């Protein structure tokens, strides 16, 4: 029910076209890269899929995060713009369900994006590396891993968007977080597990270091923790509103 309402709210905000455009823009990176300098990559040693993700994933992940930030800001902007959130407060709806409806919607959008992006990466690998045989489960595994690694970012960004009434404040915080994570030195494992930093990791590099359970566990825990934090935050805000 709540999901239907949230989807309806996003109807004329351009959320769906934005997701599609972002997915297409992100998928264009590997294709353009291969069209321009295919020889550089085909000469490299290693699994074709890993070569392509190494070369392109940084920028694709950044685009995904830009979409998550914009999407979260937009979803709460529609609530705050004409005091919609106050009206939601008087309805017999739990305050948290609004948040989780938006969360599920954003995660579904992200799911679609990641599936398209990994499919394009696999397609590029299959097209330019004739010896490469791809398996369906590998592609799905990679997409699923990226999704779980991006979940804490989605949760944290939605919390920021729900906490700030003005869109430029939440947008600014999101952008600043992305910026800070890109300039911090990447040598400590603790820093790498921060939200806004995990989406850059690829399955191959994490597997190489043998940290897959660690990353999945911490990202899952972070997601749950931020979700609980939002619950507490909503309660506190109600008391002081």
């Amino acid at each position, binding site marked *: 029910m709540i999901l239907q309402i949230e989807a309806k709210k996003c109807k004329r905000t351009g959320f769906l076209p934005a997701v599609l455009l*972002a997915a297409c823009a992100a998928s264009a990176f590997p294709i353009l890269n291969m069209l321009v300098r295919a020889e550089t990559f085909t000469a490299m040693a290693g699994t074709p899929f890993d070569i392509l993700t190494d070369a392109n994933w940084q920028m694709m992940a950044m685009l995904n995060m830009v979409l998550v930030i914009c999407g979260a800001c937009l979803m709460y902007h529609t609530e705050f713009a004409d005091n919609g959130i106050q009206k939601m407060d008087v309805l017999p709806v739990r305050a948290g369900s609004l948040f989780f409806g938006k969360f599920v919607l954003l995660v579904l959008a992200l799911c679609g994006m990641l599936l398209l992006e990994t499919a394009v990466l696999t397609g590029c690998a299959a097209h330019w590396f004739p010896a490469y045989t791809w398996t369906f489960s590998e592609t799905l595994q990679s997409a699923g891993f990226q999704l779980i690694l991006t979940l804490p970012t989605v949760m944290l960004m939605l919390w920021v968007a729900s906490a700030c009434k003005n*869109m430029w404040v939440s*947008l600014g915080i999101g*952008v600043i977080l992305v910026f800070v994570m*890109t300039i911090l030195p990447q040598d400590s494992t603790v820093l790498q597990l921060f939200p806004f930093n995990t989406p850059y990791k690829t399955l191959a590099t994490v597997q190489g270091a043998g940290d897959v359970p660690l990353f999945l566990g911490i990202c899952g825990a972070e997601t749950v923790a931020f979700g609980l934090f939002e619950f507490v935050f909503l309660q506190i805000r109600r008391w002081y509103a």
Partner: protein
Amino acid sequence: MSFCSLLSIEFLKLKRSKIGLLLLAPVVMMWVPSVLNADMNFDTRGIAIAPEYNFFIQGFMGMVWFMLPASLVICTVLLTQTERANKGLLKMLSLPVSPAKLCLVKFLILLLLAVAQLGMTICAYYISAAAASHIQGYDFLLDPLFVLRVAACLYAGAIPMAAVFWMLATLVRTPIFSVGIGLASIVPSVLVLNTKIWFLYPMSYPFYLLMTEYGKAAPGVYETQVQWLPWLPVAVGITILALAIAALRFGATERRA
């Protein structure tokens, strides 16, 4: 209404927007790690560059590549959304003020906010360079005239980009698209800089200027001279075109409604 009084009114509107904090936060976050890791400036990885120049350029690089454009996008959101809440722009348009003038005043505010952030960056640079000098026992401070000249160049290089972002913000009413296009255009700017048609892409101008400074400080890293010729006319053309479109279409949806 005169240009100056319009400007002062626009400043009043920014009063409680917390934009100062949003501009300051990335500046502080940028310099803290570079003070803590100041010893890394001595390890130049085979590039012939003096540590003080390395400190300056590495510090400014993240700022110019990502945060300067992103701050401009955030400021355009601020400038458009403060007017849209409670139909502010509709009220402004009913006053005897030329919409084009109003649009240009808002663009000037956008540039002034960028200048404010650049000023903060320079102050933060001197504070952190002094701190790093104290910790490392090496003089990281550069000549203020050099720093000011480079900062002024970077800022001037950001004007065409600001004009394009401002045009996007006035043309595209749906915030997700104007913001999304703006932020997404930052991502490939370094890639575009490596192609031959970089001068057509305003988002890569400030980074190009910083890279030429890098080339001057460390021979062989990048070009040492700015290629003015195809670039300058194109940049001026893009700026004028973007501002003209923004001025013509400013408040179009409000007037139609």
